């Protein structure tokens, strides 16, 4: 079984762009809307690419800005200058 990872994001302008970017960059990701938030699930591994989010927001988005939009996650995290990855080891 491939273990699922997930991230829940606030339904805000930034949040919508992050969810859109995740869905575009992770073909296996699915989104589940809940009141005020969206939970994105993906088998095994999920990447949030800064350039993808920036493109959708029309401004430079720093992966550390994830701290302003994230509600919860399931999995381990690795963060660098261009992306944030959620994965199981």
């Amino acid at each position, binding site marked *: *079984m491939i*273990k*699922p*990872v*997930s991230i*829940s994001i*606030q339904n805000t302008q930034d949040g919508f762009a992050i969810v859109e970017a995740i869905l575009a960059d992770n073909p296996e990701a699915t989104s589940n809307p*809940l*009141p*005020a*938030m969206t939970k994105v699930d993906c088998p095994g591994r999920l990447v949030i690419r800064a350039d993808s989010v920036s493109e959708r927001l029309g401004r430079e988005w720093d992966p*550390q*800005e994830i*701290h*302003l*939009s*994230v*509600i*919860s*996650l*399931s*999995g*381990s*995290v*690795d*963060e*660098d*200058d261009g992306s944030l990855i959620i994965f*199981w*080891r």
Partner: protein
Amino acid sequence: MTPRKMSLKQKYGAYTRGLDWKPTYQREDDVFPFAKYEGIKIHDWDAWEDPFKLTMDAYWKFQAEKERKLYAVIDSMAQNNGQLGITDARYLNAVKLFIQGVTPLEYQAHRHFAHLARHLPGAGLRVAAQMQSIDELRHCQTQIHTISHYNKYFDGIHDFTHMHDRLWYLSVPKSFFDDATSAGPFEFLTSISFAFEYVLTNLLFVPFMSGAAYNGDMATVTFGFSAQSDESRHMTLGLEAVRFLLEQDEANVPIVQGWIDKWFWRGYRLLSLVGMMMDYMLPKKVMSWGEAWETYYEQAGGALFADLARYGIREPKYADVAKAEKGHMTHQAWGIFYNYTHAAAMHTWDIDEAHMAWLREKYPDTFAQHYEPRYRKWREQAEEGKRFYNNGLPQLCQVCQIPMAFTEVGDPNTISFRVSEHGGDRFHTCSDGCKDIFDHEPEKYAQAWLPVHQIFQGACGGATLPEVLDWYHINQGADNMDYAGSPEEEQWNRWMEGRRPVVPVAAE
């Protein structure tokens, strides 16, 4: 030479380990006196690396931004009569339970993470604990600021810290946290950061905040999400801290497993209050406790424990009991509150037909058979003017402190209780999970401050109920009893009356 911009990883290293030093004129063991007594062995503190490479400068920047967003909403609530936007005044009882039961825990977390920020020998973990300590203080403060708006109009909120220290149902969350803060630093990390924040917190905050959003409580959603954004960092800390302990020495594995078993069960029992809130206190419901348990524990937890299996960690003991009980727990918890509404600083109510239909649908195997007849009987009694109040004091579990009303697994007609002997006394617990915890450290739990025992010992203001309620600071006739007939109901109806259209709308 022009200075080059550091990468995130270099910057993180410089701002954590780069600031650390080795003591020279004091022994390491004297500087960190709590680091070893639990038996945890750490060989290389430098192996710790925070997955979110957040440094203090960036931390202040993002936290300030979160506060700006939150306070804009708080101001807007105050300026626009935000209290009128909620679906129904009964909803507010969930907020009461939150500020009475959870907000004081945020403060406790603040204090104890400050302790860890001083006493953990690794610099990376100390910095993470320092940030978390500040986060938790922020959570406490922003919750108080936000909910103070409701305190102007609603009962039961006015003296929450006093109530937290005294009320029978609030001793459940209070004793949970006291248990954690009186443990060693690694048990605390495993209990709060891992078992509670990583494994179980989604069950507290996510349904709570979604419920608030769905019920028009903009303010609670905003502080909740603001706190949750820190929580993701706390959860990650919990997971990585446990992984770090497991990787450092094989001898740590059984110790950590014991803590996981204990704190899973402690956390699960604590969540019975949250499950009850989800199934009974939200006028518009988001998901049932049973569904939330499946999504956030069975699925997410399943992946987690499959991942930790490589270290020899298994699923928490008694997770199967939690699974088997999920169709019963919340109904039994609501029953306790209905029985003792005269002694609680929140309201209960009759379960109406639409609500019963929802419960039948969500709990097809249990509700109609075991709980619906009970509610119908209670309604009948109330209609005859004989609303049932339990005037006896319940026995409490020595560990989780919940009134002994949960039933045996597979036998919902028999109350579950266990007995242990220690020092010539008998101690009662509600389940195998709580009994194991008691038997492992009887010297600790024998000292529990149990609200019912304290009343019988004369330590709670007097021998009569009104005296005890005064000692609780319950404003009798307003804070307690059913919603029907309360000053809050009268106020809400008056508000809603004023909001109906003045000119009758012509029928189509």
